[in-house]
């Protein structure tokens, strides 16, 4: 996935493009793969540019860090790591930013199901709390997070 950093460096440095403003950096879990989405803005074209690094594996998502271009992307990458477990290679400070340091799961992944999540299956009622897949929610590395959605009745 090192091409993303190269693409971003080119659109940042090229005198005809000059996308110098990083408008946003976020992680996405499509359910099948992980993505990192960048939004850039250029004073030349006066428009947004969306760059999507797609096809990151869900077991071990890795993407290159863009902190060598935008130092301000550091916290955004920390957030994407915290929420999705995407490891940004080259980020000097890749630790959790919102969740407590001893937290082991990644809340915004699609297999992280809320214990009282009845809204996804309307009409089926509220699942009892003890039936909630607690180990999947609270412990486990990204590799052994099982599909909570499949496990739910």
């Amino acid at each position: 996935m090192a091409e993303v950093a190269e693409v971003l460096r080119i659109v940042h440095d090229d005198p005809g493009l000059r996308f110098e403003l990083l408008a946003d950096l976020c992680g996405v879990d499509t359910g099948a793969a992980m993505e990192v989405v960048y939004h850039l803005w250029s004073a030349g074209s006066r428009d947004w540019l969306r760059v999507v690094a797609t096809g990151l594996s869900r077991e071990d998502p890795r993407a290159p860090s863009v902190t060598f271009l935008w130092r301000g992307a550091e916290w955004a990458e920390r957030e994407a790591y915290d929420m999705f477990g995407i490891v940004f290679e080259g980020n000097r400070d890749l630790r959790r930013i919102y969740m407590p340091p001893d937290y082991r799961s990644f809340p915004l992944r699609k297999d992280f199901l809320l214990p009282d999540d009845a809204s996804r299956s309307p009409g089926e009622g509220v699942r009892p709390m003890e039936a909630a897949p607690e180990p999947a929610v609270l412990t486990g590395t990204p590799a052994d997070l099982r599909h909570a959605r499949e496990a739910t009745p």
Partner: protein
Amino acid sequence: MTSPETRIRSLDDPSLFVDTPATIYDAIPPYPPRTEREAEFYTLREGEMLINIGPQHPSTHGVLRVVLKIDGERIVDLDPVLGYLHRGVEKICENSDWHMVISHCDPLEYIASMFSEYVPVLAAEKLLDVTVPRRAEYIRVLACELNRISSHALFMGWLALDLGGITPILYGFLERDEIVEMLAALTGQRLLFNYMRIGGVNGDLNHEFMSRLGDWMSHALRHIEDSMALINSNEIFVGRTRGLGRIDRQTALRMCLSGPPLRATGIPYDVRRAHPYSVYPELEFEIPTREEGDSYARYLLHLDEIKQSIHIIDQVLHRIPDGPIMAKLPRLLRPRPGRAWAAIESPRGQYGVYAMSDGTDQPFRLRIHDPSFFNLQSVGLLSPGHLIADIMAIMASLDPIMGGVDK
């Protein structure tokens, strides 16, 4: 008979403090360093020490904890610790339908919540390909600009308060209170408005709102200029903010700043002009910029922006057309599958939402880009070398709202 273990010890007894177990408030974390940067930060050289500011501290504008590494009174380095207000709004939004997203996003930027509810609405409208009635667009601009002024007025008071001046915040609240009462007449709420709807707004302009607005517009500019003259040229205020937290253009771009901190360095990036939304292309206003890039420039920039906002409100009141305030939409919204990026200019900078829809009535992913989060990050770059008391002036001039930072 009391045993020696249970005797009540005097507070002067130094062993009382040694025996206190480690808590989350301890500056040094009770686990080994996880990253290169953390290892570097928590290694102390000769004469250095760590102290905590927050999580509960009046100058952090919410629950922010900052671990300072100091040498005497000078800051060597600092490490902001976030997450004390994290509610997982993005996850909640994924599990609620598009209408509920509005009220979940509302309390993010709670000083200017008209903006934080506007962006998800804008993203949903892009996905639904709705044309919003022109009257609704004008009302949105009117409400947003009023909210921007109230937020800026409070900012200027806060900045002075953090520097030890009590009076200006009272004047800031005077302006804010008038606007908040006015918006309460329009929306029914003083703080969290819940006014924007997908396809329009919740209610039309009413008599009470218009009469309050008319009253306020007749004296607004004069009042704000008068009250801010208190600190504009105040020797202590200028002495403490000028040249403090200076940042240049290149660094500002590299730090992903937006809003007043970016424009104070001379880059005229304002989403209202950079990528116009709503009816802003039809309105005349300038994007004020400054060259200095320090705390004082950021303060003056807020004053200039208030003047521009009053100018915009004046134009809106002259041009607002008649017509419906809501587009015709079904009750249950199922946007087309796809992705949309919407951004607006909030008082703190570019506020964006990246929405993904899978064709159901719930967003598949709703990324909220809050400008406070990115602006606050640069406090680690701006503060080293300054005194502990100056970190307040730097942080207040970046104007972070912790509700938005922590999401």
